[in-house]
């Protein structure tokens, strides 16, 4: 009787390790004061890491198998970072790790030890939107919005290193961010507009719009 067996599938950790990047030692150091309550599953290797997320230094206990995306979304409540493919193809999960854009689905949370992460939630300063966010609103860059956080973070990294990119440079820098609504023209327009925005105009003017009602979610 032929039985289908679960093939020896590779775990996320093994897969990511296999990409050749050094892995932080996975010895489980006890957390002194975890910022979020320890939600790690019993019996699963976990590690206490220090990580600065959106300017806030914190020490948290992470399972060694968590990706950065998983840590952000499920354990730090930062759901603005989206998971579109969970395998490094679409860019929806892009965050800045020490200022560089990375696919947070393809980086382990333990690798973030001692590093800084910036997510879409950390783009605005208080009530003041980032010029990119302004430009994204005014140029209708998000359609469904699911890829938008990733597009913003890739654009942010680009403008940090190249304040006045050409159209081609924008397309090249963001080509790892797929938009199935195919609003690519708008994204490029918006990034160029943000780059061209004079510093004085980068205040929070249009975002004074009342937040739309969002009931129904627990």
């Amino acid at each position, binding site marked *: 009787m032929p*039985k289908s067996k679960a093939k020896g599938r590779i775990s996320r950790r093994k897969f990511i390790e296999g990409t050749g990047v050094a892995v932080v030692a996975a010895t489980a150091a006890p957390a002194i004061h975890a910022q979020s309550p320890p939600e790690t599953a019993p019996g699963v290797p976990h590690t206490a890491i220090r990580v600065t997320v959106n300017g806030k230094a914190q020490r948290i206990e992470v399972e060694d198998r968590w990706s950065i995306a998983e840590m952000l979304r499920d354990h730090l409540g930062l759901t603005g970072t989206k998971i579109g493919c969970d*395998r490094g193809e679409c860019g929806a999960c892009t965050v800045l790790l020490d200022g560089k854009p990375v696919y947070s689905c393809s980086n382990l949370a333990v690798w973030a030890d001692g590093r800084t992460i910036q997510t879409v939630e950390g783009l605005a300063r208080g009530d003041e939107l980032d010029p990119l966010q302004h430009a994204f609103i005014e140029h209708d860059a998000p*359609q469904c919005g699911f890829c938008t956080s990733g597009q913003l973070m890739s654009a942010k990294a680009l403008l940090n290193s190249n304040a006045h990119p050409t159209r081609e440079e924008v397309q090249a820098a963001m080509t790892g961010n797929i938009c*199935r609504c*195919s609003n690519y023209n708008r994204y*490029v327009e918006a990034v160029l507009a943000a780059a061209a925005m004079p510093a004085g105009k980068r205040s929070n003017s249009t975002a004074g719009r009342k937040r739309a009602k969002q009931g129904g979610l627990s």
Partner: protein
Amino acid sequence: MSETLKPLKTVGHPTPRIDALERVTGAGHYTGDVKLPGMLYARVLRSPHAHARIRKIDVSKAEALPGVKAVVTLENCNFVWGAGSVAGGIQYNDEIKKNTRQRRHAFNNPVRFVGDPVAAVAATDRHIAEDALHLIAVDYEVLPHVLEPEEALKPGAPQIWPEGNFALNPRNEQQPMGQKRGNVEEGFRASDHVFEDRYSTAFVHNAQMEPRACVAQWEGDKLTVYTPTGGIANCRHDIARDLGLPDDNVRVICQYMGGNFGNKNQNQDADLITASLAKLAGAPVKLELSRKEDFIGMHGRWPTVQYYKVGVSNDGTLKAIQLRGFSGMGGYRKNSGAIGGIECYQCPNIETVITPVYTNKTVSGNFRGPEYPQGYFGIQSMMDDVAYKMKMDPVDFVLKNMTRKANDSAEYTNYTLEECIRRGAEAFEWKKRWRQSPGSDPGPVKRGAGFAFMSFRSGVGHSNAILRVDSKGRYFVHVGVTDVGAGAKTTMGLIAAEALEVPLSQIEVVWGDTGRCPFSVGESGSRTTIMTGHAVIEAAQDLKKQIAEKGLPKGSDFLTASAGPTPRIQGGKVRNTFGAHFVEVEVDTELGRAHVTKYLCVHDCGRVMNPLTGISQIKGGAIMGIGMALHEDLVYDRASGAPLSAGYYGARISTHRDVPDVEVMFIESDDGYGPYGAKSMGESSKVPAVAAVGNAVFNAIGRRMKDLPITKDKIIGALA
């Protein structure tokens, strides 16, 4: 010709989305962001075989894994998924869902494609759920499979359903779809020239950015489902019917949705599976599909094979068109499998015979203009070819033969097709860019221009809206839209503001929750603006009347108005939207690479409610069409029947660097129907795009590319 539209106060002005802030700050809550106390995580085990009978499923080891709270298979979750096989694309007809013989369940035996769900697990952690899948032992009897529709119809082909591979229609008959006018045989006899050819199109996946997810929570016999759907009302009704609950016991919530692109105005098997797990586990459950599962377990555009025969007279007038088409439906007939496009030509004799065929591929369903982009590619490539053979400019050929009345008989409510084509040709500089002699550019890199046009449904129909005003003059617009990305929330707000004569800032749109919103037709078929928008206007007029009579309410009171109009088109007319796309491509004949260098869309969408989001819609559809024309494909291994390219990279979805700047030109008209003259928009720009690109490639290289996608290997092969 179009008349000048009277400008309005709010509608028609470029306006940022009312929820743009949420979309750029990460504050919008999509289904996958929902987290409920005590929530479990679910994963689905899917068939690794294209066609197999399940002898036995042993879930005991999975159930014994610590943390696993529920396991479902076809033995304890045997719900019929009505919208999974509606035998003919009749989405909203409960009788048909009851009567059809070829029903799809949440879990099926035999399994009919790689990815057909076999079991599902809910556990305290998604990693435990994933581990548990590996502990489920399934004993399969592997059956022979067939992947291509024409092969599936041959005698001796593997039988996917007991009745055969010719998919049954709603009356459980094997009847091809089609239309007939005049007599094609007489038409061919009366023709001076008769041309025949075969075109084929590939399976392309919706590939919306948000992978399917679902959260289900039971409170007694009441069920709340968070799920990505463009039609909360239809989704709720489908879930209730399939689970045997009254509609009122089900609440569907979709606050933000990461793209739709078709076949999401109903429930999905994921909803039934998640609800079953949640019931069994006694806890809320979140099911998350991986990207690969979304590619193989959901649906995409049906692949087609199209045989055309076209008769013309010496002066290039169409005399007869015949189409024999075959559509690959996958293992279940989720939607019709029709092939559209012939209706956009004026011709006395037409005959189409289209056979929907079961195959062991991923299920096909509606995807942005369900039967049109692939059908238009076929017929408009064919006609483009006929034009060249008749030594005519393709634009002149179309101006001679395009539809002027619907089905050559019914008047359109207004007609701007000719204007779209003429103005587009002028703005694009068609005469300059089009090569009279295809492939004549010297050197290995050749340019050429192509065009295609469309005439696309834009009907009116029933929808509801409820408007309320409080003592402070705040207006609440309750509409059952989700806003899948097209901007429906904002459009409804603009329409309400216009009709109420108040600024948009006084409007609060309440959406995406059957607990708070009335019926809406749902975001499919490019209907929301027209149908729900019309309901908003009617409710607004009622509310204005009430305010005029009674003044604004006092204290905590509200005034409320509700409308559910079912407008109809008068005088037997047909309401369509029109457009034309002009494309210039550059083909590197040594590398086989085709690249779009210029793209112009001209559309008459009636009055454009919000030019800012409207332009985005048109651009998006055109760019999707370029991808479908040049690279998108879900490739299968013929030996195993397994999909090989399920994912963004493998299926070659367009990226930033693949796309040109798409220019959009609107011709605005008001035919007296639709809210302030709005016509349909969402699907329309994908419809002619694929054909336009294909025609441009022909003009550049002088070889007719008849099989999608027009990849590098095919171009090099054609030139060899």
